[in-house]
């Protein structure tokens, strides 16, 4: 399985190149656009295939810079005329609240809460 990974101990973002799925786990509290840039680059590479799934079921915490980063990625999906599927967890309270909000910017985004 070909993978590409970014991690720092508190979080990991792994792209499975075969399925084009990006799995983000742990706690993401990076500061601003600059610190989120490497993960954005990983997602953009995945988006180059047109369809990308981002699995956030293991992402316990995301700060406000992180949700803004996901929103910006959603805009890029729309501009690239790609498709995005987000997988979240019903057990993590902010998933139900904020992941659905991404559909306010790009209604076509599919959000699956499991």
């Amino acid at each position: 399985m070909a993978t590409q990974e970014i991690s720092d101990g508190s979080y990991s973002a792994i792209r499975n190149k075969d399925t084009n799925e990006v799995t983000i786990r742990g706690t993401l509290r990076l500061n601003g656009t600059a610190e989120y840039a490497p993960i954005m680059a990983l997602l953009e590479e995945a988006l180059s295939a047109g369809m990308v799934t981002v699995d956030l079921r293991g992402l316990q915490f995301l700060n406000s810079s992180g949700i803004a980063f996901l929103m910006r990625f959603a805009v890029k999906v729309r501009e690239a005329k790609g498709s995005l599927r987000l997988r979240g967890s019903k057990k993590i309270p902010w998933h139900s609240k904020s992941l659905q909000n991404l559909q306010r910017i790009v209604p076509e985004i599919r959000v699956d809460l499991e």
Partner: protein
Amino acid sequence: MSVPPSIIDEYQKRIAELERRCQDLETIIETTSEHADFIEAELEKRNQFIRHLFGRYVTQEVVDQILSMPDGQTLVGERRVITILSSDLRGFTAMAERLPAEDIIRILNCYLGIMSDVIAGSGGTIGAFLGDGIVVYFGAPIQMENHARKALICALSMQAAMTRVNHEMRERGYPALEMGIGLNTGDVVVGNVGSEQRAQYGAVGGAVNLAFRIESYSVGGDVLASDATLRAAGEGVLLWGSAQAFPKGSPGPITIFSIGGLDELPELSRRHSDATAVELPAPQAANIWPVLEKTVAPNPSPGLILRLSAKGATLTFLEGGAPPSMFSNLRLDITGVGEAYAKVTAHEDAGRRFVVRFTQHSPAVERWIADVVNVPSS
């Protein structure tokens, strides 16, 4: 001059694009703020939960200070001087053997509940509940200037609160409880000790062991303190007395002080004398065994009980000889009455007589005492 339609069209497209970006930005700001509000609210809920849970062991002030420090900095290992308070119920193990399990839990919860409130109010941090014993730290996890004095005030307040505990005990038809307290001040290592799965904030070091040892010298109602605690506590400490002891692990004998109160808190000062003490018209014979490390020595020495009170007695050995050492434990077989356990609390008459406090006695002995000193048995 008219603008070509193609340019107008191009500008309209750009304006539409800018409007859309502007709308995107507004949506991003709005949803980001909503997310931030949501996680703030979640964080506050968690903080409240931690405050509630942790607040049962330390004061709200300590919880707030710890929550405001990044990564629980205060809980890493650190060497510092603190005051350790160790308390224990006297004779509770024997009582626990006689009562049903649910009664024991009810009694402990009542006692520990009242004591926890007193400790939190005094600024102490509960290190552990050890059955009926409580270990409390003053000066950890948060540094405290006057930790020895605060610990003394806490100990006196805990003894005063025993009135409330025993009122509850009477209401529920349980026997009265007595508590002994030991205090020591010294250098310890504080921090989280344990494994990843289970850790506990605690203090380790000789000073902690000595606090336990001092507490083991106490009888019901006592607040005993080491010289180090007394010196650190400052002026105005009312003493009932002092005695030399040579605890295991100590390089030499140490002086233990019995604390009666504090000048500035007369409401917490206690009476020293045992008003119920009576001289026996005819001394009562008793066999006396030393108890060492919870084991009764094989050979008793014959003795006489000269004075008796609701709480203790004054004895002498029939055949003379040195009195049992201070704070040592004895088993008494009171001839024709029954068995009792006691602790030596004073030497009198140049060591020819010694005073003991009962730590445990049979119902027959309790009835005999009540008869002699004319107080109702509990």
